[in-house]
């Protein structure tokens, strides 16, 4: 399964990790990633750089794992979704540690191809719901069904503490605006070779992703 991060240039610590530069700050903040493809129709928040990771990125950073959740907890906390019960109790139902989150990912990986594709596009179906019901409270599954049209309801996000590591073999694809690539700031991205693609920033990351997908399919 693919993992995604869409970031802006202010994520200096992540850019430093990608460029294999020493950290300029002693402590890096928590970063959020999610399972599946970037949200494209349309994104609620936008970024300018897209990183697609292999699943090994999650497993090899287990020590930095802060928490995971089947849905976007930030969207619940900031009022984009109405929680069915008190927010803190609902969050506690969704949050899981590395063991549980990786078990969920493993179980979801065994789904039929059509369901895995639905999951990668942040959709919901009966097979996905059946797997999730083994791990999460019915309230969580019902919530995900209720908001199934919104990709943030089936985001499968996870947070890593700033100590996480990005190795060359973790990165499947890096999409960077063409003008950014001509900056000394991002010279280090060359280590990813052909995994780095550039795009016209005017059209945004999601257009670049859709174009890459159509070329590869």
């Amino acid at each position, binding site marked *: 399964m693919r993992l995604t991060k869409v970031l802006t240039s202010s994520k200096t610590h992540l850019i430093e990790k990608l460029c294999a530069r020493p950290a300029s700050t002693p402590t890096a903040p928590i970063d959020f990633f999610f399972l599946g493809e970037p949200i494209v129709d*349309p994104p609620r928040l936008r970024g300018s750089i897209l990183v697609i990771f292999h699943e090994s990125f999650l497993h090899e950073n287990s020590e930095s794992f802060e928490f995971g959740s089947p849905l976007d907890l930030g969207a619940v906390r900031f009022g984009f979704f109405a929680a069915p019960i008190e927010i803190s109790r609902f969050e506690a139902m969704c949050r899981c540690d590395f063991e549980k989150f990786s078990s969920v990912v493993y179980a979801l990986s065994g789904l039929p191809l059509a369901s895995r594709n639905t999951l990668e596009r942040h959709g919901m179906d009966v097979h996905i719901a059946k797997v999730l019901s083994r791990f999460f409270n019915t309230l969580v599954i019902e919530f995900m069904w209720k908001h199934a049209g919104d990709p943030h309801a089936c985001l499968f996000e996870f947070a890593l503490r700033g100590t996480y590591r990005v190795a060359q073999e973790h990165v499947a694809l890096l999409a960077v605006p063409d003008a950014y690539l001509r900056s*000394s700031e991002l010279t280090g991205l060359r280590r990813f070779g052909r995994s780095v693609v550039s795009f016209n920033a005017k059209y945004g990351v999601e257009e670049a992703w859709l174009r890459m997908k159509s070329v590869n399919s």
Partner: protein
Amino acid sequence: MAENEVREFVVCGVYEKALARLCPCHVSPVIAEVLNGRYRRWTYSIHRPYRLVMKAPAGQFVDSSNALFPVVSYQTFVPIRMSPETQVIALGDGSFLVSESHQRLTWQLLVAVCHRPHSPKYLLRAAITLANIFR
């Protein structure tokens, strides 16, 4: 969005920050609907040929364009009325070019480049951005 709905949209920021060493470059605008002096952010798609297509409101109306995000992690500026063809170019020192006119963007970008201390890489990025205005 229904075709017959007439709403006023403004660009009031960009989904970027800390651009100093990456500019000049196109950036994705933060777009908000204005109603009775209040602002509500909208999601949008970018079509080819270049066109911003409004999709749905994101969040509630707020009193200031600075209050559109619960956590301020993007750059905001004084709201500017926009059209679907509006492009936004960051110049790298907190200033932005916002216009739907290719000629105006080209002229303003050239003027901005002439008035800034620049490196060869800055000039290269400016050339790419100039070409991107028309692509």
